[in-house]
């Protein structure tokens, strides 16, 4: 087969100038998008209210003098455009600023929260995609069979149901009633399950992962099933069958390769959104991740934290999009780089 040859061909075109120029141009396009998002977020955040007024609510006896000195300390006394430029200058030097709640560097905070979220999300996404592809294919192969009807009904339920509701139901059953799984946090003290750190981790992950996987699974299965159905009806699949190709090869070599495009897009978007996490699920399970902190920071008007996380999400989404577009060139020969 010339698949070996086509790989070498693809590889040489990767090193070739077309792909290189394309990537450089796309990276340059990111700059205005990035700046635009940062400006909008910054001013929206500013319009949301005076961040120091919340301190006054928490501590009624705080003096006006202290507030003024805090304002100067955080640079909030300057005009907003100047504040933005200062923030941007710092950002370009890799400095996200300091949290308005406690004054700790945002870089450190994000670093310590991100790991928990990435762990939760990555496991869920990979699990969801690994499970959904064979189930989706099977459902399409046996359209309207009992198995298919069951899978599509369960998927429809998964798409329609609010995630926090499923989370609460799981907590009621497995933590409250059966007492099998921990209802909150990412770590036990002491460790659950025979005092083993790995088993403890698994015990804490099971329910949040189950919720996230179920939601993603539902969407994914529907996507794969719909695409497969369309392609299995096409003439070239019939042609492959007529030339004597085995059913397994017809499905995996012809149909799946053509059906996988939208799935890759969805996977890319999911990976781009990995940091944003699933605030709802993190909240329900009190998971110490970024998603939950993001929402808390927004409510507390802690804008250096909000801006920092927003910019990371922006960056990751932009890069994920670029990667999807590059992946498409390899999956679909009809797409040419221009």
């Amino acid at each position: 087969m010339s698949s070996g040859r086509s790989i070498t061909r693809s590889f040489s075109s990767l090193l070739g100038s077309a792909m290189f120029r394309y990537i450089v141009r796309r990276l340059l396009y990111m700059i205005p998008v990035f700046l635009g998002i940062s400006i909008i977020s910054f001013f929206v955040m500013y319009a949301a209210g005076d961040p120091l007024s919340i301190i006054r609510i928490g501590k009624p006896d705080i003096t006006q003098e202290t507030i003024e000195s805090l304002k100067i300390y955080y640079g909030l006394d300057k005009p907003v455009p100047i504040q933005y430029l200062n923030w941007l200058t710092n950002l370009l030097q890799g400095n996200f600023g300091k949290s308005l709640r406690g004054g700790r560097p945002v870089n450190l905070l994000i670093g310590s929260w991100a790991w928990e979220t990435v762990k939760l999300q990555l496991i869920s996404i990979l699990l969801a995609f690994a499970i959904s592809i064979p189930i989706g294919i099977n459902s399409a192969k046996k359209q309207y069979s009992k198995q298919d009807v069951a899978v599509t009904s369960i998927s429809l339920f998964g798409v329609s149901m609010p995630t926090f509701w499923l989370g609460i139901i799981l907590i009621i059953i497995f933590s409250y009633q059966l007492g099998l799984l921990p209802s909150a946090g990412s770590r036990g003290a002491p460790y659950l399950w025979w005092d083993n750190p790995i088993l403890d981790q698994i015990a804490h992950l099971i329910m949040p992962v189950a919720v996230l996987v179920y939601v993603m699974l539902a969407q994914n299965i529907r996507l794969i099933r719909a695409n497969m159905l369309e392609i299995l009806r096409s003439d070239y699949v019939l042609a492959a069958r007529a030339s004597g190709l085995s059913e397994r090869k017809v499905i995996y070599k012809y149909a799946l390769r053509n059906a996988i495009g939208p799935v890759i897009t969805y996977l890319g978007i999911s990976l781009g959104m990995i940091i944003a996490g699933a605030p709802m699920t993190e909240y329900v399970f009190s998971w110490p991740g970024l998603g939950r902190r993001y929402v808390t920071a927004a409510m507390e008007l802690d804008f250096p934290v909000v801006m920092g996380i927003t910019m990371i999400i922006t960056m990751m989404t932009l890069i994920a999009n670029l990667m999807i577009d590059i992946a498409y060139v390899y999956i679909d020969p009809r797409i040419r780089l221009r």
Partner: protein
Amino acid sequence: MAKHQLKGGKKTLTNSDLITVENLIKYFPVYSRGVLLKKQVGIVHAVDNISFNIKRKETFGLVGESGCGKTTTARVILNLIEPTSGEAFFEGENIFEKFQSSNKKEKLKLRREMQLIFQNPYGSLDPRMTVFDIISEPFVIHKHVPKSQWKEKVYELLELVGLEEYHAERYPHEFSGGQRQRICIARVLAVEPKFLIADEPVSSLDVSIRAQILNLLGELQERIGLTYLYISHDLSSVRQISHRVAVMYLGEIVELADTDELFKKPLQPYTKALIQAVPIPDPKAKTMKNVLSGEVPSPINPPSGCRFHPRCPIATEKCPKEKPKLINKGHAHYVACHYA
């Protein structure tokens, strides 16, 4: 038509037939989806008890309006759809029995003998494969060409269908409709088949390209000795390419004869109407006399007796009551009509 008493098994070859189809029936159930359960509400009589034979190196035309069961016939013969009942033989071997059996080698062998060209060359090529991959795919499946000769063989096939060597590295979307149909033909020829079903191979193509493809099919028949089942609703192309023609109406064959005989002396009123409906490239020629009125009835509830009677200009009381049999009227001209 040849009558064979043996059901299944190997049949003694008494004639030059390559393909024999006997009492072939394909019904599709129609379901209505309830809340939980589905129930069958009807049957589409797609192919209803048809029999014919195709001789070696012959082109057998199958014509009829859309939805009369031509494509279903083709797909059932290739066992891409399971038949409801009936038999089909390839060189005396029972096709359906072979595909039912668990002998993988035999199945593959039969797949190699019979191939299919599709109506729509835009949908029948995998957009993710190069022309080389598409044409060499049969070599992967059937292993009848050693890997060292693939390139040579692919180039040979491309040349045979009138394409160039450099086309091998391209993808289907880079070709025109006519070129794609040539690629489809090259792919089909790669398995070295004896029998080719061409399911409306030119109807989606430009008129100027139609002739090229039809000529190519004719040339290939002469050079390689192929046998065709040529399916079309376009009578002019059927007349140009076929040796014998069968006319289908609502899943049944209503007339079958040599091409010249059929076009000069059509006996069935439906065939007459079809032939009269062919436009004649002469503005002074008389306009069509009896254009068919009405639509084709639904194959779910086909008319009783002769299925053509609701639209037939010469129908009498007998027609809805009694189904006419396909009878030989001499010169191997078969017709199903009470008044032919």
